[in-house]
């Protein structure tokens, strides 16, 4: 890519095309600043220090919102629930998607491969609010398919959405079913990018499939694993749609997450200043995760096959 840039510079005599470039960029830049850049700035440096309920004008109140946030038992619950989701969902996504990808990239006939890949990726493309309706019925205690299957196997019905502790698990199960296809596709591409010659050479040397996996596939897959891990961490920390659509934070407060709190405080209770403080908190969490991930990258991600 570097040669291309230097070559272009020579061809186009290094003359700066500032006006043209910014004309091309302006719609994107304007939209970015108005709807993303400006808002994140406003949330972090202004709104979180204010009190605003849409009706009355904005009032600056200093760090009151943050003091309230750290003392709020509801926030503590939301934080713990979010942590639970992260701890359950991230490993599930990272590992299940990998196993699925390994199973699908074996030497099997193409129609089967196509069928497996399509089935696994299928849930990711449909509308969340449509498919949560289906799963709410599947989770139904008395008539749902899941409890029916359990009863057929002579097991007790599970209070999927009725019990606080089970509700979180149910939402997690749904989330894996719906979203694992995304991580799965990244792994499939990563595995397909491993040259067959490496694998064949190892097989000639008599390596077992397990050794091939740990000593060849996994190291070469580490950039993909890093990517999948980071994406899933960031997504799980801000999880909203699934807990909202299936249980709306309930029963009780068992599936309330940080993002759920932001929504409720801002658009149900109209405590927009307080919600902005929580939103800033969420942003900082994600920024920290990203920084930690990128600094740890050098320790275990293997890029030298390029």
């Amino acid at each position, binding site marked *: 890519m570097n040669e291309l840039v230097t070559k272009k510079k020579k061809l186009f005599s290094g003359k700066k095309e500032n006006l043209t470039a*910014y004309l091309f960029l302006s719609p*994107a830049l304007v939209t970015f600043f108005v709807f993303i850049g*400006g808002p994140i700035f406003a949330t972090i440096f202004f709104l979180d220090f204010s009190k605003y309920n849409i009706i009355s004008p904005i009032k600056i109140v200093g760090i009151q919102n943050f003091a309230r946030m750290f003392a709020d038992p509801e926030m503590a619950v939301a934080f713990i629930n979010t942590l639970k989701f992260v701890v359950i969902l991230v490993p599930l996504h990272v590992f299940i998607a990998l196993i699925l990808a390994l199973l699908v990239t074996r030497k099997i006939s193409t129609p089967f491969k196509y069928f497996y890949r399509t089935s696994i990726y299928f849930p990711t493309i449909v509308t969340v609010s449509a498919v949560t*309706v289906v799963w709410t019925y599947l989770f139904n205690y008395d008539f749902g398919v899941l409890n029916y299957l359990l009863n057929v196997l002579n097991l007790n019905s599970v209070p999927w959405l009725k019990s606080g502790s089970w509700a979180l698990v149910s939402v997690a199960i749904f989330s894996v079913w719906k979203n694992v296809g995304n991580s799965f596709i990244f792994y499939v591409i*990563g595995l397909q990018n491993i040259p067959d010659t490496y694998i064949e050479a190892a097989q000639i040397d008599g390596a077992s499939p397990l050794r091939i996996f740990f000593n060849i596939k996994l190291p070469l897959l580490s950039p993909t694993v890093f990517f999948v891990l980071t994406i899933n961490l960031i997504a799980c920390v801000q999880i909203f749609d699934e807990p909202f659509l299936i249980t709306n934070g309930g029963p009780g407060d068992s599936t309330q997450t940080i993002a759920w709190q932001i929504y409720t405080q801002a658009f149900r209770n109209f405590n927009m200043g307080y919600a902005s403080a929580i939103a800033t908190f969420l942003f900082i969490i994600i920024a920290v995760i990203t920084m930690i991930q990128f600094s740890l990258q050098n320790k275990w991600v293997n890029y030298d096959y390029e």
Partner: protein
Amino acid sequence: MNFISAGAKKTILRIALGFIMILLCAIFLLPFFWAISTSLRLPKDSFNLPPQFFPTSFCIQNYEMVFSTFPFLKFILNSLLVAVVLTISQVIITTMAGYAFARLHFAGKNICFFLILSGIMIPISSIIIPQFMVVKSLGIMDSQLAIILPYLINPMGIFLVKQFMQTIPSSYDEAAIIDGAGKFRIYWNVILPMSVPALAVVVVMTFVGSWNNFFGPLIYISSWDKMTLPLGLNVLSSSLGNGDISVILAGVVIAFIPPILIYIFGQKYLLQGTTLSGLKS
């Protein structure tokens, strides 16, 4: 196990893995089969046990009832309008930005690129409140514009388009310059037509993303006749309760169809796109 040959062991393993794969795929697909079959049952039978995964009754009236009892057609048309307008405008904005990053030299290029890319990492929950205030002050609350304008910026799309455009040899640009074309002509008549694979990815991503968008309409849309399908379905299902679920499921099944169609249509481009995103190189 000495009496089983290595070859036989391998075959047994293959068959076992095959069964496991079929079982896993069944887990991924069965909810859809259940939804379709139950949507075709008589409303009063919808929760009858045992559950059906393949339709045995064909109560098409459920599908009629969805449209007659709710402004379901309005939901679909709203979703379609928003998705089409958003996709077309976003493709233009994204490819223009991608072209600028791929082909033009200008001051602040790297800063702008980094800035736009950082948009991927910013959680929607952290910007929704000021964004809500902007939408309100623009006077477009509860309108289609409210769920189009904030989504015109697509950092991932800009990244993909830039990556792709950089693989187009500059000889095409040179030929166009010799013919007297300016930067915009090069963009519109040379680079854009050659970027169709990347365009296809952006089109599919944007259309499906818009169609499936729930959070945006949740915040910005409140009146029945402006609702899009995801929000409409959600409101619908909470209002009907557990009685006539086969009617709701008819609506759900209808909602499934457009993303599936777009996905089938753009399938090969989609996979190409993820390879383009830099994981390979």
